[in-house]
């Protein structure tokens, strides 16, 4: 199976700070080979005999062929696990499993795509941008965050994208506001055919609403709490409407994290919609 994940003990090549984020480059041959844009990996935090039992999911930002294959991860410190990761040094080893999840589907024919990233969510968009450009697509970026130092990858976006629009909630970089404030204008200006988005759930909901308004397809990479990342624990589910019109609680680690935006019931995330398959007392039981 080309896409099947592997577990590797990878040596850390470099660590660096990128504004508000930490970046790690790790030698992980089997993972780099199999990587497609949108894939993620899980990292064991805390070293041997760690008390942290669940792995941390991180998007693959970049892969390079050096040393048989490296992956670059970009992350914000949130709790104990990411705090531990931020202390990792070059030459330390990391236990990584990947590549995981359903990657971004690519359009068959060249078209114009808007890539929308919120906070560290932009990290997954550059490999996607490369793949789209290889297919002859035009790409435009819309990146946003609360403040300037939390906007990830603005320089790279400016180099790669036909246009790049930045937003911050405090106005410290680009336009003051959110990505969804500027997205309709960008879609109209560039006559976008499709939207790709990665970032916080609330942003994905807004981006999807905009794309639906324009009647163009939108692919979103969601983020739900994960314990295993490989599809065995059932903790990472989101309500998604299937081809048959039935809502199911799908695992974002295997059926996602990339979904068609209009299929995700964003308003019902964190609930079991009453009409979902198998909902308590629901009619689909």
């Amino acid at each position, binding site marked *: 199976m080309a896409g099947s994940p592997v577990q590797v003990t990878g040596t850390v090549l470099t660590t660096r700070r990128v504004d508000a984020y930490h970046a790690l480059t790790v030698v992980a041959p089997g993972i780099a080979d199999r990587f497609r844009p949108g894939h993620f990996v899980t990292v064991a935090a805390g070293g041997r005999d760690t008390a942290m039992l669940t792995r941390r999911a991180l998007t693959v930002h970049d892969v390079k062929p050096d040393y048989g294959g490296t992956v670059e991860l970009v992350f914000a410190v949130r709790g104990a696990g990411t705090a531990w990761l931020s202390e990792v040094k070059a030459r330390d080893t990391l236990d990584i499993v990947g590549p995981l999840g359903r990657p971004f589907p690519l359009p068959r024919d060249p078209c114009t795509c808007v890539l929308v990233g919120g906070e560290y969510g932009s990290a997954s968009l550059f490999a996607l941008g490369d793949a789209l450009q290889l297919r002859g697509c035009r790409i435009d970026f819309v990146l946003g965050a609360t403040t300037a130092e939390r906007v990830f990858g603005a320089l790279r976006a400016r180099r790669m994208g036909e246009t790049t629009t930045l937003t911050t909630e405090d106005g410290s970089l680009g336009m003051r506001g959110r990505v969804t404030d500027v997205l309709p204008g960008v879609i109209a200006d560039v006559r976008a055919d499709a939207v790709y988005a990665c970032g916080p759930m609330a942003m994905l909901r807004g981006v999807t609403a905009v794309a639906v308004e324009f009647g163009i397809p939108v692919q979103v990479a969601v983020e739900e709490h994960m314990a295993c990342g*490989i599809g*065995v624990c059932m903790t990472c589910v989101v309500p998604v409407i299937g081809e048959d019109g039935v809502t199911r609680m799908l695992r974002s680690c295997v059926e996602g994290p990339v979904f068609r935006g209009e299929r995700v019931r964003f308003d019902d995330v964190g609930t079991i919609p009453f009409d979902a398959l198998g909902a308590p007392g629901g009619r689909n039981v």
Partner: protein
Amino acid sequence: MELPNPVLTASGCGGTGRELAQFFDVVRLGAFVTRSITMAPRAGRPTPRMAETPSGLLNAVGLQGPGVEAFLERELPWLAERGARTVVSLGGGTVAEFTALSRRLADAPGITAVEVNLSCPNVEDRGRMFARDGSAAAEVVASVRAAIRYDVPVIAKLSPDVADIVAVARSCVDGGADALAMINTPAGMSIDVDAMRPALAAGAGGLSGPAVRPLAVRCVWQVHAALPGVPIVGMGGVTTGRDALELILAGACAVAVGTATFHDPYACPRILRELEELLTERGFDRLADAVGLAHRPAGTGPRGRTDLEESSL
């Protein structure tokens, strides 16, 4: 019931088997234990369904699953084709549901044993779990025993959240259980201090992982002491071969691995290898010789016990 080796997946921790097969051949498992299968599809609980605690994991998945028909159509045949030995875990809210489920499974090929998840809430008893009461547990076990094929062993899975686990264990055996499994997750809770709300959407959840291992060891110990002839599948926080041996010395003749698989997808085959190495190192020819060995009187040598039941599950 003969298994080629004593390391099983724990119910609800191995997916459908296909997910783990990406990492290792499921035939290498002593047995694959399914998540608890219910009659109808179940959507489970809202998210967040998990929270990490020190050396522990709280979960409230709520038995999400496709229901028995989809299980028989899509999941069991795949496991059978692979040659996996499959233990089907049963979940239900009433005795009638357990009976119906057992009837539905009665003539399905490829079932090595059934495990009765007695931690399910009993809808006819204000949602209190069957496992908290010996007579309720025994009633479920007897109904499954009566409906399932005579040559398919019935394993009763017990909860540690009871005043007297030995009494419940005895009732289950009296009700027809061929073996016992323990422990299911004790109830726990965690509050997100920043949000000042419970960390799980469901409020409380089941605690698993090394945090509960001493609880598992105590339960296995007590039940083995009282019912030395009954095979026990021990589980709760097994992460290494040493942890597996601890439960075996307490009286388990097989161990199941749950949460450890979330951290290490290869946990089951790794733990088996580590356990085999430990047994060889200590000069045990057979696993059965180590089962319950910690019960020997103080002062006796490590191999002092000779009256061990041959309880290869």
